[in-house]
């Protein structure tokens, strides 16, 4: 049939394109030596992971403003494990991810029962509470935070003394997360999430336990955020409550919306990269940045609600005369 030919060709093109991008990312540190540029890439990659956590919850019909909370929990967990218990980063990373997951399970089991607006509000409040707790309680370092977080121990010949090694580490973690998330989205779990998002009552008539699958998304997404937090702590080598609060949870949403809400992995990728790099090049006064961001956000919502990828896709399908089977649109 004609349709499957188009699909196969598109998939092949996509694979080639994706491969090229991947190769470029892997080879990048050979060309770019500027430490600040590498830092931007690293922060962008962290942003992509965080954006993907928002998208995962969105894919199940939940809007979260609490991604910053689990990012923080992972960071603080990993920091405490290594500074108080002397664990190496390589142990602290998986452990703090696990701890974040357990906290997410506990909190999620309560708040996932109130989907919709209540969930969004509670997630916002939870993030606020976590930051406040980190700041007010001495054990967590108070507002000054915790300094002196150890770099990762050398992994074989790889030392973690330059930004380059951190670059590869976060790139690896990012790709790993993207792979896991992609496997989930293309499995029936992803289809169930989509059903829950599009019509919870209809999903229920199919026998789907909404609570269980929402909780699953919540735990997985939050664990990924925790993992990113752990990396951040050992990369930056210090953590303060402010690094996880403020506009962070809002910017995370923005990554996903800007890139394209329906693109759970590429959307946040594009959004995070743009939001990390463009402000650097525009040289706007620091104080205008939130205003520009706000205007930008409004423009996207009002005119390009599909985000960059969504708008591109609409362009593409408008050019084609046949409807691509199985293609979902916003």
């Amino acid at each position, binding site marked *: 049939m004609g349709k499957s030919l188009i699909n196969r060709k598109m998939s092949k093109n996509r694979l080639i394109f994706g491969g090229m991008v991947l190769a470029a990312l892997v080879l990048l540190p050979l060309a770019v030596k500027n430490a600040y540029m590498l830092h931007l890439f690293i922060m962008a990659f962290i942003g992509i992971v965080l954006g993907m956590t928002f998208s995962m919850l969105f894919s199940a019909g939940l809007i979260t403003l609490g991604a910053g909370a689990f990012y923080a929990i992972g960071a603080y967990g990993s920091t405490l494990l290594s500074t108080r218990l002397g664990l190496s980063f390589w142990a602290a990373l998986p452990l703090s991810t696990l701890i974040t997951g357990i906290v997410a399970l506990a909190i999620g089991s309560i708040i996932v029962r109130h989907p919709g607006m209540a969930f969004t509000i509670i997630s916002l409040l939870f993030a606020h509470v976590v930051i406040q707790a980190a700041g007010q309680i001495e054990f967590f370092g108070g507002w000054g935070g915790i300094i002196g977080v150890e770099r990762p121990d050398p992994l074989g010949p790889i030392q973690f003394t330059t930004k380059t090694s951190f670059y590869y580490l976060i790139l690896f973690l990012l790709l790993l997360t993207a792979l896991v998330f992609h496997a989930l989205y293309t499995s029936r779990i992803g289809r169930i999430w989509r059903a829950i998002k599009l019509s919870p009552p209809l999903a*229920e*008539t*199919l026998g789907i336990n909404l609570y269980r699958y929402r909780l699953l998304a919540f735990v997985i997404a939050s664990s990924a955020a925790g993992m990113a937090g752990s990396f951040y702590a050992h990369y930056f080598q210090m953590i303060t409550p402010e690094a996880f609060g403020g506009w962070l949870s809002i910017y995370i949403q923005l990554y996903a919306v800007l890139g394209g809400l329906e693109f759970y992995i590429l959307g946040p990728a594009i959004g995070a990269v743009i939001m990390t790099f463009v402000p650097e090049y525009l040289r706007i006064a620091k104080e205008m940045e939130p205003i520009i961001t706000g205007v930008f956000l409004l423009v996207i919502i009002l005119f390009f609600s599909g985000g960059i990828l969504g708008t591109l896709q609409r362009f593409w399908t408008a050019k084609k005369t046949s409807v691509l089977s*199985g293609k979902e649109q916003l």
Partner: protein
Amino acid sequence: MALLEIRNLKKYFSGLAAVNDVGFSVNDGEIVGLIGPNGAGKTTLFNLISGFHPPDQGKVIFAGEDITALRADQVARKGIGRTFQASTLFMQSTVFSNVFSAFYRQYRQPGWKAFLHTPKVKREEQAIRKAAMDILEFMGLAALGGELATNLPHGHQRALGICIALATEPRLLLLDEPLTGMNPSETMEIVRKIRQIQEKGITILLVEHNMRAVMDLCDRITVLNYGRKIAEGTPERIRKNREVTEAYLGREEA
């Protein structure tokens, strides 16, 4: 043997009884009609049976099991499928996707294996894809597989709703006004399909306003008015029942 038994069901909304002491039963293999003027409580009754609202009093017994307190998804897993009055579909998905996603109970491979995309999982999904296509063909929507549900004309949307319900392989199918807004030829088609569904062995409880279709299809009919059951019996009995005619004449129909 009664597949579905409703006993003394009551449901109040803000002090008003939407369903007031309703009881009847549906036997295995039957098509039972549930009729009554607008606001008589028919959809509420559906919601009570399918677990979307808990009743204030009474019992719902399905295949000998008390399912009154069960949630909607639990009821669905027991084998009760339903359609909705409004077009409740996965609007942003394609027709095929709607039906393919509707298969849930049938999966035997565990979730973690689905995540790993093992060969067994892939084979299972292939089989389910085929089953989804079969249902689409049965309802005559196979050619529209790639269309977005939201772009479909109303009649096809309702048919898609039935496809989704069929995908759950129900023993009992609750059809909520499947013929609303359909032209005569569409109506005839759906009536035929409903009969074919019965022939497959699925028991049907049908809410409908189209009286000809109801008289045509149903083995027995229950009539509600103002939340109460006012009559029950074969179509001929109901046709001759004066109270029923008065109930309809005395109220406006949609």
